[in-house]
């Protein structure tokens, strides 16, 4: 417990006050008063970490006012009173109390509160640290991240879901760091990077001669993570066979490396992540329901930038200021970037800023922006033709659709090149006359594009 804790006690009964002082003295510096007026004065003049208020002072319920006042000053406030009716308890919390204790104040009850205070302070510090690495002002995302305060205190599995490039790996590493620090291993694997056979070997390891090319024993990531954290990125890519084996490994802490007769043991905290809809995969029998239930104790959903546009400028500034060499964005460039959908999310912003650094850009003008940022069409998959586009094709026909794609490409490059026709035509590898033709063609169909 922090020895320098500044503790404030307001209690009008001298014996109770002296008793609380004696009980709380080992935890920090104590300042105590017996009247409402003195309490107000002390709150105005001194700084406290935690305050204990009696409710009845000088024949009135002054403790409620003091609680509200202390709460406003950011002090962790505890009510210690003889009243234990529902109305009093409710009013206590509504006025900002963090804890409500009924008298008698004993060593046990006060210790309980002080431990809770300590944990809440640690959780707040963790959240502050998290906000330094996970940049967001989006309220829903902040609420999701708040979950990490409780996660800190447990070894339970965590499931991170959200689009690619939103910082899930970074978040997993942060969770590991707050829990284990550097003392335990953090082992990460992207399940989508391996084919079925190789992935099993990567996860569980193999013994020499298990398959063609297995020239020596290999330790899998499940064993490497023993005592620490195993981060399974793109967990939806696991085959049903690997899922079954993983389920057993999580439940029993034991598994068999590929080609081995002997089981080996490993205990780890599991953090999984995916950009896919796992419930849909469960319905189509591609993901085991029991495994999902096992790895999904805490679920944190991270939204893509397209759903939290308020973070775009914030993140741009974060990455621009991260390096020693500074770069600034022109107003026009910023406006274009704010309208862009950032399909690759935070990773894309980081890469873009890195690219400007490599190119030695100082002030980023519209000219310095890559052509894709001029497109405002939402990207829903890796396919060129999205469901929206298919609808348009159905309505206007394939030829007109292709012409419209050409037209949109022309307009995007035209804007990027500050309305310079010849440069745009050159970049598009078309003649200036084709440029003019495409620009003017199908103006009557613009409505489809805009919608």
């Amino acid at each position, binding site marked *: 417990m922090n020895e320098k804790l500044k503790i404030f006690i307001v209690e009008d*009964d*001298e*014996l*109770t006050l*002296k*008793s*609380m002082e*004696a*009980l709380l003295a080992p935890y920090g510096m104590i300042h105590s008063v017996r009247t409402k007026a003195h309490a107000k004065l002390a709150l105005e003049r001194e700084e406290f970490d935690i305050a204990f208020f009696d409710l009845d002072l000088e024949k009135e319920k002054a403790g409620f006012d003091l609680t509200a006042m202390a709460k406003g000053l950011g002090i962790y406030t505890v009510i210690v009173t*003889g009243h234990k009716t529902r109305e009093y308890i409710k009013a206590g919390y509504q006025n900002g109390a963090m804890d409500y204790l009924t*008298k*008698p*104040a*004993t*060593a*046990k009850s006060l210790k309980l509160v002080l431990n809770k205070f300590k944990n809440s302070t640690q959780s707040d510090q963790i959240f502050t640290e998290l906000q330094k690495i996970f940049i967001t002002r989006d309220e829903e995302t902040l609420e999701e991240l708040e979950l990490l305060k409780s996660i800190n205190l447990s070894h339970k599995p965590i499931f991170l879901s959200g689009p690619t490039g939103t910082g899930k790996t970074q978040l997993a590493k942060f969770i590991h760091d707050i829990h284990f620090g550097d003392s335990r291993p953090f082992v990460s694997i992207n399940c989508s990077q391996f084919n079925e056979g190789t992935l099993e070997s990567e996860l569980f390891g193999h013994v020499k001669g298990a398959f063609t090319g297995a020239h020596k024993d290999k330790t899998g990531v499940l064993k490497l993570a023993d005592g620490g954290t195993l981060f399974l990125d793109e967990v939806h890519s696991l085959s049903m066979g690997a899922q079954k084996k993983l389920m057993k490994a999580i439940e029993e802490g034991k598994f068999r490396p590929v080609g081995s007769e002997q089981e080996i043991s490993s205990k780890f905290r599991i953090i999984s992540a995916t950009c896919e809809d796992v419930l849909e995969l469960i319905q189509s029998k591609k993901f085991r329901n029991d495994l999902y239930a096992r790895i999904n104790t805490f679920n944190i959903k991270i939204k893509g930038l397209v759903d939290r546009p308020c973070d775009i400028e914030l993140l741009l500034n974060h990455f621009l200021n991260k390096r020693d060499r500074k770069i600034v964005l022109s107003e026009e460039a910023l406006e274009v970037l704010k309208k862009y959908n950032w399909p690759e999310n935070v990773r894309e912003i980081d890469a873009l800023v890195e690219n400007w650094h490599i190119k030695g850009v100082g002030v980023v003008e519209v000219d310095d922006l890559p052509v894709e940022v001029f497109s405002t069409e939402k990207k829903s998959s890796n396919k060129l033709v999205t469901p929206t586009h298919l609808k348009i094709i159905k309505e206007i026909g394939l030829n007109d659709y292709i012409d419209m794609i050409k037209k949109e490409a022309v307009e995007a490059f035209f804007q990027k090149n500050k309305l310079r026709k010849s440069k745009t035509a050159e970049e598009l590898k078309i003649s200036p006359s084709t440029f003019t033709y495409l620009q003017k063609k199908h103006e009557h169909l613009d409505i489809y594009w805009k919608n």
Partner: protein
Amino acid sequence: MEDKIIDIHHQVRSKVLSLYSSLSAIQENLYNPETCKELLELMMRKRPEIENIVDEILELQNTELKQ
């Protein structure tokens, strides 16, 4: 009469709770004689207040008997 009983009940409860806290504090400070002494002295000072409550209870009983 009922108000008087409630008031006495409140006073008794308040004293008991206060004494209970001080017992817990003494228990935690057995190796700190100064604190123990101070707490015990304060406990002793409660005696007249407790005697007052006892008087009040007796008076109440007498009133009840007369009625």
